[in-house]
């Protein structure tokens, strides 16, 4: 028997194939089949279709859960009417059923207890767990004020706990999606255009003539709509330019791949700006009409020539010029993609500003093939009493830092949770919903210290993620396939509403987050904020206000609405940007006023020492964050991550394909687990690459435990963006350890 049927054959070995051209088409078309016909097969059964929208990532594609006669979820298929997925879910969405069927799910509430001097969890009833939480929250409010409760959240469930905290009297609500992810981009675009690019992004990839990806690996990040649109753009012959030290999937489909030296992106961006201005190929009409600060910018980038950038980026001046010309030729139907995970080097707002300025110079904002104007459908909020006004909020935890943080910065909330004598704004209790902080937050020492000091830590999740191990109370949430949730109201090209309803009853003792929030709220005397017995009533009420009904939504799943406003700037009509002056800010007076560079400057970042390689991390299309590494429908596609090593480096170290090594970073931190070596020409010699989300060290994740390496444990050097508090994580370097380290790695 063959042993080669390893699950998925992502490997460098393929079966030989010979390209044939249209001339040799004879076999393919025209030849008749020699096969005779024979008997039939039974047709597929009729399954119940239940509308949902996906919760495996933040894209929230709408789909249908197909439920069999015996109540099993057979499959999940995209909703054809949903513009976010066009009937086609990504692998994670298709495999979303694995979240429901995961044998390691949290099953009952758990309360931390001391037993024979050892801390452990014991199963608890919902009443007991909820009473405990309410009692603790009341104590915290009495002693320190309700503001001392904070929430960390990600995904649909966060909304219910935000409501709970707001009703309780706190708005200390933070999400890693800001300071650890898209915050720098949002801030940079906001400072330039007066608004950011939202989620799903308002990028017109579908109709672009030139797509520039710099630090965005569409196709590996499976942001469904964008992947679909990039494919459409390839079909239409769009020029793709990808800047990446690694030959990403997108880079392999690009006309130009710019294999940049990592950490030098801003030098390239500035030299592109230089070429557009000094070769006089920027969009003059657009800039004259909509932008201000051009003369200052022109003077500012005078010396940022491609020749200057060559020495920094290792990219040839001609390549920089040619790609700038490609952008100019396509303008305004050109998109320098803003990216999403942008917290890299601590000057990330400035890099995002440079991307925004490039888009501004080319005229892409408001034009077809660039960045379009979104429109959403407004759903009224279910009535509730006004929230009490907190006496202090997350802004106070900034202590005068990060003046352009428009959302709470996770790290300052964590910092505020470490007790200090005389600390004015002290946080004592956390609710953590849908985010595995232990893996997503860098600056682990601070995180651990904070968690050790809390009076209450409640974790709500579907899975026993690492963070649950630190909780006083663990609440088992049911998965998205077992609950009603808020309507998904998306603002994009077309305004849409999508419904999520339970396909099946919740397994075990799990409960929906809306129920958990309501139960805690009622125990806190906040029942007036939860004027319903079932969340269904909220949806019914909301839909009624806009002349829709739950019945109809259950039938269609997704509702599209006609736009009332234009998608692009209308010819002949003026357009006001949402900045103070109504113009695009090439020069930022706001930044200047706060003591920052009004225009981006290149700063050199630390480079690896001899024998070390820059740690680059990213996504694989079949996994989301650290959330899917235990999903049995997905793990076989990629059971563990591998460290990508250039063959020259591998030879230097004597590393062989599939050999396991430990990684050690510049601060001496050794990875918990060993990781497989992938020797590949796709990665630069000065860097290594790993897919994020592996190396789980929590044993209850029975499949994921010990598989691969966790990039964030090696990210100990953090460069904080002074503009908005983003935590730059790309300034870490690793080396290889070939033999098992003597000391057991800490867990």
């Amino acid at each position: 028997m063959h042993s080669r049927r390893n699950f998925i054959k992502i490997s460098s070995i393929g079966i030989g194939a010979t390209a044939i051209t249209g001339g040799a088409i004879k076999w393919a078309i025209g030849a008749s089949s020699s096969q005779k016909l024979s008997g039939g097969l039974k047709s597929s059964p009729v399954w119940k279709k239940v509308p949902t929208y996906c919760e495996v990532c933040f894209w929230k594609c709408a789909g249908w859960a197909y439920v069999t006669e015996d109540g099993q979820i057979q499959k999940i298929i995209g909703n054809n009417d949903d513009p976010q997925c066009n009937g086609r879910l990504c692998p994670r969405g298709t495999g979303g059923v694995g979240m429901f069927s995961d044998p390691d799910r949290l099953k009952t509430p758990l309360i931390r207890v001391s037993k024979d001097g050892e801390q452990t969890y014991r199963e608890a009833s919902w009443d007991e767990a909820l009473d405990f939480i309410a009692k603790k929250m009341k104590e915290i409010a009495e002693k320190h004020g309700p503001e001392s409760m904070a929430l960390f959240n990600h995904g649909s469930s966060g909304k219910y706990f935000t409501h709970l905290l707001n009703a309780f009297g706190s708005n200390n609500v933070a999400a890693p999606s800001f300071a650890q992810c898209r915050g720098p981009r949002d801030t940079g675009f906001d400072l330039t255009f007066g608004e950011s690019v939202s989620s799903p992004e308002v990028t017109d990839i579908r109709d672009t003539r030139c797509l520039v990806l710099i630090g965005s690996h569409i196709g590996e990040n499976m942001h469904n709509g964008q992947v679909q649109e990039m494919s459409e753009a390839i079909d239409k012959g769009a020029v793709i330019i990808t800047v990446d030290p690694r030959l990403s999937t997108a880079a392999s489909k690009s006309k130009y791949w710019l294999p940049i030296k990592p950490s030098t992106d801003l030098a390239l961006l500035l030299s592109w700006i230089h070429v557009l201005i000094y070769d006089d190929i920027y969009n003059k009409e657009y800039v004259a009409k909509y932008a201000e600060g051009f003369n200052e910018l022109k003077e500012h980038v005078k010396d940022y020539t491609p020749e200057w950038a060559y020495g920094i980026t290792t990219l040839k001046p001609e390549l920089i010029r040619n790609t700038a010309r490609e952008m100019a030729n396509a303008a305004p139907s050109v998109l320098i993609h803003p990216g999403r995970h942008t917290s890299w080097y601590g000057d990330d707002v400035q890099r995002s500003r440079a991307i925004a300025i490039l888009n501004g110079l080319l005229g892409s904002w408001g034009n077809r093939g660039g960045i379009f104007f979104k429109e959403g459908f407004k759903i009224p909020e279910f009535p509730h009493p006004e929230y009490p006004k907190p006496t202090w909020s997350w802004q106070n935890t900034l202590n005068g830092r990060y003046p352009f943080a428009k959302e709470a910065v996770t790290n300052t909330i964590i910092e505020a949770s470490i007790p200090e004598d005389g600390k004015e704004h002290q946080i004592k209790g956390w609710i953590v919903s849908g985010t595995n902080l232990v893996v997503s937050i860098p600056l682990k020492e601070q995180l651990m210290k904070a968690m050790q000091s809390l009076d209450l830590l409640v974790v709500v999740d579907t899975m026993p993620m690492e963070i649950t191990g630190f909780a006083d109370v663990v609440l088992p949430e049911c998965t998205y396939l077992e609950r009603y949730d808020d309507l998904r109201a998306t603002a994009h090209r077309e305004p849409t509403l999508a419904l999520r309803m339970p396909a099946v009853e919740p397994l075990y003792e799990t409960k929906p987050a809306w129920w958990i929030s309501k139960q805690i709220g009622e125990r806190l005397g906040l029942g007036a904020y939860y004027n319903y017995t079932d969340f269904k009533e909220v949806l019914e009420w909301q839909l009624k206000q806009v002349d829709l009904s739950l019945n109809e939504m259950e039938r269609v799943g997704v509702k599209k609405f006609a736009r009332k406003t234009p998608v692009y700037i209308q010819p002949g009509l003026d357009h006001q940007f949402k900045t103070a002056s109504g113009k695009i800010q090439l020069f930022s007076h706001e930044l200047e006023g706060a003591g920052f560079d009004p225009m981006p400057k290149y700063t050199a970042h630390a480079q690896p020492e001899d024998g070390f390689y820059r740690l680059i991390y990213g996504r694989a299309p079949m996994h989301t964050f650290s959330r899917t590494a235990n999903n049995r429908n997905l793990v076989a596609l990629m059971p563990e991550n591998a460290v990508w090593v250039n063959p020259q480096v591998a030879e230097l170290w004597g590393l062989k394909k599939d050999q396991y090594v430990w990684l050690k970073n510049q601060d001496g931190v050794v990875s918990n687990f060993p990781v497989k070596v992938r020797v590949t020409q796709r990665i630069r010699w000065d860097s290594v690459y790993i897919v994020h989300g592996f190396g789980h060290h929590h044993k209850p994740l029975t499949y994921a435990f010990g598989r691969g390496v966790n990039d964030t444990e090696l990210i100990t050097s953090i460069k904080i963006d002074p503009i908005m508090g983003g935590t730059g994580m790309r300034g870490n370097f690793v080396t290889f350890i070939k033999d098992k380290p003597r000391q057991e790695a800490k867990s």
Partner: protein
Amino acid sequence: MRYAMAIDTRKCVGCSDCVVACQTENNVPVGFCRDWVVEVVDGTYPNVSIELRSERCNHCDNSPCVRCCPTGASHFEDGGIVLVEHSKCIGCGACIEACPYDARYSHPEGYVDKCTFCIHRVRQGLDPACVSVCPTKCMNFGDLDDPNSKIVNVLKNRKFKSLAPEAGTKPQIFYLV
């Protein structure tokens, strides 16, 4: 009628959605697959290229698996779809050895299993599950005998190749390059 697939390697991102969709559509046991993704890397950094391909049974017109099957379990259905009739299969594995594409596997229940082109869907006028789920729409499924079909159109207008042509199996899966 002659069913075939033309898969556009320029658009495929190797996400493996085809694999997951096949599993949930066809109850393929976890740990096995009827389709898979191959990545071929060529060149030296920075002059490197990648080809990503979604592979499966080629539903060959000259099928070694059908020829070698001692019980007739492996057979042709309408449109040239190669099927295994599970009740006739004795699990001898001759077809697994004979297939140049490694497209078949031993099902834990004792028979040999592989891609069916989702014949149960095709008969309802639907695309196979892998084709219908693909986010990049890189897969075209259709009838090569229908001159108006999209698959005929793309094969006429694009360069393409098939796998292991030297095996002489006349495969029905074409890769647009």
